């Protein structure tokens, strides 16, 4: 039998914060009261009784989070082949750079001349991202991919508003990430689903049938969420453009094609990037991310304000953009996330970014070829950064994707993305990313094969998995039926 790195060991239980503590303790170092107390002046009706936080000592807080951290799994712990999420290594130096004194202490409302450092980072990062995508102009404001999509959809709306056209439908493939239709709907568009072709990519004819003068355009992901390159993208964008529409590209999967694909040449008008995927910023157990949008020059004026521009040798904020969709963030987006991506790009340079994509694609194809004998491969095509299997071959043993995923946990691997995209029933989407080395991938493959063997020989073991974790399978139905959201 092949083992992954997962084993059982001693970890520590820890109650909820407010199940600990004693009134009067504190973990906070109280600053000096060097001015007179004045709260007596406040009208009684404005005063509250203060929130019921637990009072803890410093070591209480330290142990609480230290123990909690032991119940988590991050990239630093092990392989995290979560498809569509690009869980690559997050360099520590980027954390250090983002903690540079002059950067963490900068206030967003100082005048431009007092903020040249931060503005330089923003300006240069804009330039770098334009270069990497092939697009013309960039706004870094969107705080995540979905906000980038929304920015894009608002630009769609503003563009047609300006042109005086009333269109309200938008084409979105059935493989799209859920945020795509949600963002479009939020901006008043009615998503029209395009069924993806049998080979997992878009059928040009279908697009051509659906695209009409009531439709603002298309929102597509390339490489798509099946890890496949939309080879007909030029035809598709031509069709959309011919009908006066615009093309939105979801660039969350950019990690597959840096230095290999030029999105402007593909005919994309607007696209977002997920810096917390392709550009190595840590996902933080949920965020913050950053979802810059890149546009062709024709759409530059629609970008959110303020814009960061350079005049002579100085960086400035520009507000007077009449066509702009306005502001999306209280300040400049998730700045410290942008700083990390900037640090990453500077560390890599052009050749390493290109190599990154090549190795990401190599790793995915290698996994695809290595597991295709034991797992049903959803599409017979060369894949990009990820490959999609399903549990078709395991159903006869009454074993589902979920069971296999949970068993991988016991072996010390974060499971792949499962049950997405919806077009592949029981999908298992594996994205190794380029930072995994061959030995580790080989071990993962061997373990996965073993899990598949177990599916046949010892299914109950899979259905009971995971057994090594602090908690076994959790009752999600009960959680949703009787929500208990605070303690």
């Amino acid at each position: 039998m092949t083992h992954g790195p997962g084993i059982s060991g001693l970890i520590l239980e820890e109650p909820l914060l407010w199940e600990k503590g004693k009134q009067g303790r504190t973990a906070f170092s109280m600053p000096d009261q060097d001015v007179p107390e004045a709260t007596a002046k406040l009208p009684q009706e404005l005063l509250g009784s203060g929130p019921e936080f637990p009072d803890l000592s410093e070591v209480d807080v330290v142990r609480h989070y230290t123990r909690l951290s032991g119940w988590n799994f991050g990239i630093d712990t092990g392989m995290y082949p979560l498809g569509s999420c690009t869980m690559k290594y997050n360099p520590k130096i980027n954390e250090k750079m983002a903690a540079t004194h002059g950067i963490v202490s900068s206030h967003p409302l100082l005048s431009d001349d007092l903020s040249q450092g931060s503005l330089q980072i923003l300006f240069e990062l804009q330039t770098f991202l334009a270069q990497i995508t092939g697009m013309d102009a960039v706004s870094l404001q969107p705080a995540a991919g979905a906000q980038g999509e929304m920015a894009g959809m608002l630009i769609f709306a503003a563009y047609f508003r300006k042109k005086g056209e009333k269109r309200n439908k938008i084409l979105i493939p059935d493989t799209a990430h859920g945020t795509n239709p949600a963002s479009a709907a939020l901006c008043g568009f009615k998503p029209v689903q395009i069924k993806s072709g049998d080979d997992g990519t878009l059928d040009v004819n279908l697009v051509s049938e659906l695209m009409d003068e009531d439709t603002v355009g298309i929102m597509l992901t390339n490489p798509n969420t099946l890890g496949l390159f939309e080879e007909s993208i030029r035809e598709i964008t031509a069709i959309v453009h011919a009908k006066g529409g615009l093309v939105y590209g979801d660039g969350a999967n950019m990690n597959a094609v840096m230095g290999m694909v030029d999105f402007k040449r593909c005919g994309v008008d607007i696209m977002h990037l997920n810096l917390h995927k392709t550009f190595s910023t840590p996902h933080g157990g949920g965020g913050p991310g950053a979802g810059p949008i890149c546009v062709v020059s024709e759409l530059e004026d629609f970008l959110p304000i303020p814009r960061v521009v350079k005049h002579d040798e100085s960086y400035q904020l520009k507000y007077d953009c009449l066509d702009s969709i306005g502001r999306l963030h209280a300040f400049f987006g998730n700045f410290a996330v942008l700083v990390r991506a900037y640090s990453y790009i500077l560390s890599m340079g052009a050749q390493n970014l290109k190599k990154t994509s090549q190795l990401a694609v190599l790793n995915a194809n290698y996994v695809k070829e290595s597991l295709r004998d034991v797992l049903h491969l959803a599409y017979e095509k060369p894949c990009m950064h990820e490959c999609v299997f399903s549990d078709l071959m395991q159903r006869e043993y009454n074993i589902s994707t979920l069971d296999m995923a949970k068993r991988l946990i016991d072996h010390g691997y974060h499971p792949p993305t499962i049950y997405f995209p919806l077009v592949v029933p029981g999908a298992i989407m594996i994205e190794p990313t380029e930072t995994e080395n061959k030995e580790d991938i080989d071990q993962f493959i061997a373990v996965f094969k073993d899990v598949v063997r177990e599916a046949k020989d010892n299914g109950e073991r899979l259905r009971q998995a995971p057994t090594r974790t602090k908690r076994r399978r959790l009752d999600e139905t009960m959680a949703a039926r009787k929500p208990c959201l605070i303690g």
Partner: protein
Amino acid sequence: MRYLPHTDQEIHEMLAVTGHGSLEGLFAHIPEECSYHGDIDIPAPLSEWALSEHFHDIGRNNYTSAAKSILLGAGNYSHYIPAIVPSLIGRSEFLTAYTPYQPEMSQGTLQGIFEYQTLTARLLGMEVANASMYDGASALAEALLMALRIARKKNTIAISSAIHPHYREVVFSYLQAGSFKIIELPVSLDGRTDLSGLDDIDDLAAVAIQSPNFFGVIEDLETGSNLIHSADALFVSCFSEAFAYGLLRSPGASGADIVCGEGQSFGMSQSFGGPGLGMFACRTKHQRNIPGRVVGETVDMDGKRGYVLTLSTREQHIRREKATSNICSNQGICALTAAAYMASLGATGVRRVAALNYDKSEYLKAGLIKAGAKPLFDSPTFNEFSLTFANNFEPVRRRLLEKGIIAGIELGRFYKKYKDAYLFCVTETASKAVLDTVIEEVSS
């Protein structure tokens, strides 16, 4: 390159398995007309050391006197961050994890976020809270969208013009594509929102007020709540300074239906305004309408308490275009940071630090008034306040800048009407010595 582990030999071996002759071969199916021409035009790679120097140089091009002397808030505050907070939350098991889709290997994040939701609800006096929004501004926009969903047919909302101007801009951006009507409520002479006209507004779904508002004035939320509710609208209460509720009556206790705002004050560095933390809470009866992720308590197969992402039917993964919001990645680690910060303060600490903000702010305000400044409004304030000056204040501000002190911000940047007024902020990080310097400079 230290992040790319493949040796040439391994690349060879792997290519053999995939049936390709070269790395480029893996991309052979990409149409030529899509392909990138030439090399990406970005600088050559920097070593860790060259990078550090570069950042050091860049950092020096920002004005950052010792944080204590930036007497400016307006949505971004200088507060002390205990050394334990970044050191704990920076642990890589938290930092390098994805959204907790696999609860069995994410109980750390999940319990942490559950605790965040709980402490947030307690702070704001509300019944449920979500796992975070991008920032205070988008949280407000999402709160209004939520109110519109709850109110169904009504499509008008009213927002106080004393709400942070940037927040209002974001609201306009978010709502621009819908067929909603947004009314801005005027500011009364006392610096509070004028709610007298609510009854005349048709179809009113919700009213949004910020307290303390952009001028630093503490709104009378309770009276506001009554007026808003009698106009049959939902009361959305927002904030940019979470510390206020260490001392002030909470929006929940004052009757708000949805409360949202910015949590940067709770342990996030200023970092040119981001990342911050959109805090978001509401009443239980509206919980299925809340945007964004939420963590809920449940049990595992052995009946042991555990935590999962829940109510996911509200989200895009399931309902796609009918989701309560498009938000997916949120501000996870910021929420965890805020929880650790609230836990470090405790009930006792949050009250004392909040009071100290008030005390210090009052000290400067009183000092400046004695030195001749006039309060723009007479109402009570928390740690920010607005003043006008008899003489041109700009030269004084410039002299203070030379001493390393940023003395407030021109309200005229945001409101033409108040173009001679200045908004000051004083937190626990401002020493009396600095405040005295400002007072002296104004007096002289």
